[in-house]
């Protein structure tokens, strides 16, 4: 289906927006992890979604490989898929949980929240 751009114009050739950060609310209670995670019970993790198509924007910090792959894809979509929209910068969160020995542990877990997305 056609998507509407920021300026209200419709482009029939694309069905997805450009690679960017989207909301992803993680609820540990719904995951069934509230039996070992004390806090937080939920947090905003974000996720990356969208297409990496030609021409790639510089804020997406594409690797040289991604630039080549995107170029190849633009010339012949059947020869190679577009590059992938993935997290390029992640930040940690603090988690308070109960370990196997029933001790309460505070730990900082790296790479839990997406800060920015890019094409790789």
């Amino acid at each position: 289906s056609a998507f509407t751009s920021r300026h209200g114009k419709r482009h029939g050739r694309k069905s997805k927006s450009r690679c960017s950060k989207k909301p992803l609310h993680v609820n540990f209670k719904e995951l069934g992890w509230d039996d070992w995670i004390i806090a937080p019970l939920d947090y905003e993790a974000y996720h990356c979604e969208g297409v990496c198509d030609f021409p790639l924007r510089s804020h997406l910090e594409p690797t040289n490989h991604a630039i080549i792959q995107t170029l190849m894809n633009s010339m012949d979509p059947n020869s190679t898929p577009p590059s992938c929209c993935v997290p390029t910068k992640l930040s940690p969160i603090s988690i308070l949980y109960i370990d196997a020995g029933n001790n309460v542990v505070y730990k900082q877990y790296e790479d839990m929240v997406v800060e920015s997305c890019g094409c790789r």
Partner: protein
Amino acid sequence: VETAALSPAPGSSSPGTGLSGGPGRHTDTRASKLLLVKENGPPAARSHHHHRRRRRRRRAHSVVPHHFMMSIYTAESAAERVGTNASLLRASSRSAANAITGFVDTAEDDAVDSHLKRQQYLFDVAALSNKEELVGAELRLLRKTPEQFRPTLSGLYDLKLYSCLGEGQPSKLLQSRSLHIHQSDAQGWEVFDVWETLRLSHSAQFCFELKVTSGQGERDIDLRQLGFGRKGRASQERALLVVFTRTRRRESLFSEMKEDIKSSEGSAGELQLHARRRRRRR
């Protein structure tokens, strides 16, 4: 399971990273369907899943987090939200730590002992992994003076902390410090740095012993008078051994998940073993 539970919030992002953050509502019908599929899965898998959930729930709900651990979490997560490095942990000498474990004292006072000259504190530190680098450890003891002893308490006292080396062996003095009580109702946490002691020990059980003498005459003081008695204390008021560690490699949530699966498989294995023994007996 992940697809079912990790539902993107519609529209703007929801806040809620606090301790009281409640569950978000399921608005994604696809997610609800997936949850339904999971619950109505094959009977064997379903029963294993429910058994595991029941076992884990028992474990988690029996643990009351210590105030100190909660305050560490609150301070650190607040610093994260603001995006500052001015957290308590980062400002301290233990800034290298990325994990803090609280071990609660498991010892009890002798009810028949009329004069409590010394008090032992026992900690099961078996959960500490060799893969983690120990960067600090402190023993936190709460002094909470009972009402009846307050009028006669003011004065100078010597607090002596020993390590217990086992039956028949002499205790080793680790630290000694003065405690000057000006106000009869003064109370709070006494914190001892025990990093060196813990670093040199390879035991799964850890034992400390506290003794208090009066500053004037080296007279042994009843620890209950000074406010170290355990009777009637809530679990948050028990002694706490706080261990600061740093994981050498990047810690992944998978290790926690694997540990949980392993312990669940262990209990399943035990059940099978019992069934086999019962069959053999029959």
